[in-house]
């Protein structure tokens, strides 16, 4: 006794014994894989289904309504293997990759963005260990709770250090599946293309609004931002040569380290600026009486620019290596701002002095605005 599966072949129902269904499923999967490169794939698959349906009809009668396993295997033998008939010369490399696939590709840890909640770290780890990403997410949340926030830091470091799976090979390596499983690869390509499109769009609009908002204020401290302006306006540079896995890990770590350093400079700059504006002194140091107010502000800006610019350049280089592109737009600057904002939030919550300073700087900004609008 076999379970019966009802399937829809080109709009008509057929009943198959379960093993027959499995055989048909496997045949159609192979056909889809063989036709992956074929522009008429959908139509050919429809034709094949119709041909199978016709052959099934030959085995059915009013007294017999289910296709058995043997009948299906006869039908599929008659159909014969589906050949790609794809672009000329496609056959040879495919045969080659089949040979290589028997040993299986090396499994590697990648971030998988098409199933990401934040940045794909958890889905990447899940794929690596064959676990449900939600399990990993739960572990991260628990770890964060038990280590009072340290887990988030680990996550952020991993986010930078683990390369994200960009190509289909990487996607496959993340899962440890043979990467000539054409259909899976196709899916990954499609998903990634979609993702890249969407995120590029949202990035661009974010960049634009951000740029508008900040342009006026940046004029005064533009030394450190000039490179960003040109970077964002330049046409997308051609991709440079692909970077190896290990290099990408290093580039990711450096990107993180330099981001933290530039964020620290930004915070120090803001603290210096506002503490001078509110108390007339920077960490207890008071400017000599004969140095005018505006000159001290200017010096703070110049020192910040001089110190932060080399690190910003290093950070930019790391990101460029990471993304395999020469310029990366405002993404890295944005990350610095996010890091600075996170640090500010922690300071607000845990450091009373910092909180006081921020409250005072709010008053300074408010007074400044009322001064200029009146």
């Amino acid at each position, binding site marked *: 006794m076999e379970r019966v599966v009802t399937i829809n072949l080109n709009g008509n129902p057929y009943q198959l014994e379960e093993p027959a269904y499995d055989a048909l499923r496997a045949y159609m999967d192979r056909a889809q894989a063989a036709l992956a490169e074929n522009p*008429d794939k959908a139509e050919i698959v429809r*034709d094949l289904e119709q041909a199978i349906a016709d052959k099934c009809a030959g085995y059915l009668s009013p007294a017999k309504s289910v296709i058995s396993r043997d009948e299906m295997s006869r039908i599929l033998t008659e159909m014969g293997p589906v050949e790609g*008939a794809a672009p000329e010369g496609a056959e040879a490399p495919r045969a080659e990759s089949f040979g290589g696939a028997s040993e299986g590709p090396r499994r590697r840890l990648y971030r998988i963005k098409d199933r990401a909640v934040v940045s794909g770290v958890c889905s990447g780890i899940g794929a690596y260990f064959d676990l449900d990403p939600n399990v990993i997410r739960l572990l991260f949340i628990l770890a964060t709770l038990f280590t009072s926030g340290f887990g988030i830091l680990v996550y952020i470091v991993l986010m930078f250090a683990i390369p994200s799976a960009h190509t289909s090979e990487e996607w496959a390596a993340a899962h440890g599946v043979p990467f000539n499983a054409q259909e899976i690869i196709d899916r990954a390509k499609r998903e990634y293309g979609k993702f890249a499109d969407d995120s590029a769009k949202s990035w661009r609009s974010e960049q634009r609004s951000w740029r508008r908002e900040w342009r006026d204020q940046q004029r005064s401290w533009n030394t450190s931002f000039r490179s960003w302006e040109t970077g964002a306006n330049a046409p997308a540079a051609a991709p440079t040569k692909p970077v190896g896995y290990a290099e990408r890990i290093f580039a990711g770590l450096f990107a993180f380290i330099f981001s933290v350093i530039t964020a620290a400079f930004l915070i120090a700059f803001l603290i210096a600026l506002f503490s001078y504006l509110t108390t007339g002194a920077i960490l207890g140091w008071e400017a000599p009486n004969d140095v005018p107010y505006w000159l001290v502000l200017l010096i703070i800006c110049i020192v910040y620019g001089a110190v932060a610019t080399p690190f910003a350049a290093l950070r930019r280089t790391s990101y460029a290596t990471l993304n395999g592109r020469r310029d990366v737009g405002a993404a890295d600057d944005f990350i610095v701002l996010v890091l600075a904002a996170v640090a500010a939030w922690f300071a607000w919550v845990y450091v009373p002095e910092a909180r006081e300073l921020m409250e005072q700087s709010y008053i300074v900004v408010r007074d400044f605005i009322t001064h200029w609008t009146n």
Partner: protein
Amino acid sequence: MSDANEQFAGLRKGLLEFAILTVVSGRTVYVGDILATLAPTPFATQEGTLYPLLSKLRREEYVDYQWVESGQGPPRKYYQLTDKGAARLEELAAYWRHLTTTFENLGR
């Protein structure tokens, strides 16, 4: 005979397109007709090979098809040769003759 079948598989594969164009050139046919016509010949083939090949020929505009209602079951695709396909077949036939005469002359 089965030996020749094995040995010259590559040769036949290259000529299959020629064979299909020739079958289609005679009359409008559906896939079942093509399979039945080729079955007793060395070019016997199967749906799994034929459908992708027909779709390639259609993409290259050598053949075209129409849906024709059949007595029983769903409508079928009936294939016919296009003008471009006829020209291609002409070309292939000429080249085939050239090849065979070449072989005849080589032996002398």
